[in-house]
């Protein structure tokens, strides 16, 4: 290969365009360096350094948001990466997630005798990989970024290794994650192979590229091998978002993982899966009937299974995991609506994810604070009388759960409303009926948790092995206040965010 051709290939390697991801990777390395250089008694600054770095980057990305998002969509790295408004939105989303996970991690790790620095380094690298994942425009980039996210989660899930449930969760996540990667890869290989097959129209020798693949699929709308590849790729992504029938890992992994990691899985990993799904839905748009029928059945089963299974859970981590499964179902409705040509549907999905982020972290923040030595054992009885002993935490919990249940006027209600409106416009009537049944079911288990916190007498800590309740620290308290206030504000006033994601 002549050297000039190589130079043109590398000419679009624009490293400045992925500066936030590079910064996060370097932050991970710098934290490890800090641990080596600092004396042992000053290791307490490492969590602060991590939160400061991620928070500073968040502010920098927000400051440059309009400059980056309002320009035309731009492809760099020879078409591996595409920068657009949605990618920029998700960059902000994942940075907020990273800051919140680091804050919760600092709170949770203080109760354990675990190594501390590695947690924040892994969270930084995983966040960078998620940001690359949602901007990838090529299956090679997508798979490498996805595997980096997944490998990071294998470690984070089994982080509290003195707890057998955490190790079990890590093993289960490893096995199901490897299976889902296998399905995804098999689908990618089928698409790549058939996209380069001689004798078909529109073939390309770079069928891993989303643009080339979309062009090929549009010219061959009834190819069996391509359809098989699409179904396998969708199955691989469905594992990540925890949609039925690929949800088996969710309850055990959510229970066993340390609470901050459960929050990271519930919000970050799910949002990354949906961002990929939104991109792939456009790439596969020539096969819209197939994709909508597969996702439609999946959405209905996911909503019903998640809500019915959550009804009988006494462990709140399993409950929140299964309710997260049902939220994946509502979000799938929005993804299906994009395939019916609803221009607002992408914005509705992103808005729902932001509402879900605020509400989930409010709930997970309260859970992290109340968790005892055994992080996996958090039962609903432990919340009895929280309204008397910790009115602040009880109110934050009620706002978070109310937003998850979709009670007006909270952000979760507006998210559900927007998704349901686009689904209605896309004429998904039977799916909407299932979703409404699901919402009614979910109110039961969310409210029995709230009732436990407000209307039950406080337990005798000795009798129920309820962990001791401690006062809330200043920074976690501030973060929880912000989350709850944002949940309420976003319910009343969507103007800013709705304008940015193109709902108006």
């Amino acid at each position, binding site marked *: 290969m002549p050297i000039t051709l190589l*130079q043109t290939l590398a000419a679009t390697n624009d490293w400045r365009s992925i500066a936030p991801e590079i910064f996060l990777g370097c932050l991970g*390395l710098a934290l490890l360096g800090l641990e080596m250089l600092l004396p042992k008694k000053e290791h307490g600054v490492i969590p602060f350094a991590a939160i400061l770095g991620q928070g500073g980057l968040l502010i920098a990305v927000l400051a440059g948001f309009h400059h980056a998002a309002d320009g035309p969509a731009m492809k760099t790295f020879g078409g591996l*990466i595409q920068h657009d408004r949605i990618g920029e939105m998700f960059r902000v989303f994942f940075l907020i997630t990273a800051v919140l996970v680091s804050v919760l991690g600092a709170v949770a790790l203080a109760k354990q005798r*675990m190594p501390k620095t*590695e947690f924040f380094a892994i969270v930084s*690298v995983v966040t960078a990989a998620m940001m690359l994942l949602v901007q990838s425009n090529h299956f*090679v980039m997508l798979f*490498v970024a996805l*595997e980096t996210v997944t490998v990071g989660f294998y470690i984070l899930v089994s982080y509290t290794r003195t707890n057998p449930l955490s190790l079990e969760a890590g093993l289960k996540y490893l096995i199901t994650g490897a299976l889902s990667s296998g399905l995804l890869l098999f689908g990618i290989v089928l698409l790549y192979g058939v996209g380069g097959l001689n004798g078909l129209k529109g073939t390309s*020798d770079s069928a891993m590229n989303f643009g080339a693949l979309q062009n090929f699929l549009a010219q061959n709308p009834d190819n069996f091998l391509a359809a098989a590849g699409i179904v396998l790729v969708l199955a691989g992504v469905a594992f990540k978002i925890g949609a039925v029938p690929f949800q088996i890992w969710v309850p055990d992994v959510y229970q066993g993982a340390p609470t901050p990691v459960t929050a990271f899985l519930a919000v970050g990993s799910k949002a990354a899966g949906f961002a990929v799904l939104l991109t792939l839905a456009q790439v596969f748009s020539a096969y819209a009937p197939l994709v909508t029928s597969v996702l439609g059945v999946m959405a209905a089963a996911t909503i019903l299974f998640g809500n019915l299974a959550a009804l009988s859970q006494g462990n709140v981590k399993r409950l929140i995991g299964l309710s997260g499964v049902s939220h994946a179902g509502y979000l799938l409705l929005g993804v299906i609506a994009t395939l019916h040509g609803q221009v607002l549907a992408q914005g509705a999905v992103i808005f729902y994810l932001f509402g879900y982020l605020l509400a989930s972290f409010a709930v997970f923040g309260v859970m992290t604070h109340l968790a005892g030595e055994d992080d996996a054992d958090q039962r609903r009885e432990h919340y009895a009388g929280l309204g008397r002993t910790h009115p602040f935490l009880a109110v934050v919990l009620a706002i978070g759960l109310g937003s998850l249940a979709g009670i007006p006027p909270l952000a979760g209600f507006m998210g559900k409303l927007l998704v349901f409106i686009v689904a209605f416009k896309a004429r998904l009537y039977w799916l909407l009926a299932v979703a409404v049944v699901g919402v009614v079911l979910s109110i039961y288990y969310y409210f029995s948790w709230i009732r436990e916190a407000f209307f039950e007498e406080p337990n005798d800590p000795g009798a129920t092995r309820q962990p001791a309740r401690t006062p809330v620290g200043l920074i976690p308290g501030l973060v929880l206040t912000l989350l709850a206030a944002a949940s309420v504000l976003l319910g009343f006033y969507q103007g800013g965010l709705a304008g940015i994601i193109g709902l108006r």
Partner: protein
Amino acid sequence: MPDLLFNLFAVFTVACALGVVFNRNAIASALCLLLCLVGVAGLFALLDAMLLAFVLVFVYAGAVVALFLFIIMLLDAQGGTRRAFGKLAVAAGALAAGLLATGVILLSGSLGPAGSVPLPPPDPSLLNLGETAELLFTLYLLPVEVVGFLLLIAMLGVIVLSKRFAGLEDIK
């Protein structure tokens, strides 16, 4: 001649794969896996995918299976009794095999008889290790860098999950 070689390698690969499943001795299973991978590498070589064939032998046969053998010997996992399959499992397996066979037959029907699609001549750039490497360091440089970070956090994972820390009591 290529047909004869293909049949030879295909039968060899399938036989070794069956050997992996049916052997009672874990070490013999792992060695069958090694031979199976060599067979697959032979199939790749017949398709002119020399690089893939070599990488398969180096990485999987050379490193991964050797690791399997280490772990089997460390755990001293020998024999053991195997539980018989239940009726439900047999029925489910038969159903899955039937569906798979139907799918393959339908698919081979829809694609037409084998050999109807002429294979393109092999891309010379894929045969040359140097040019593949140059691609990795130009077009695919970003994924390569990301893989570097993947390995870094995998290393951190080994430290977190296996290092002995003061005051940390591991479960037995």
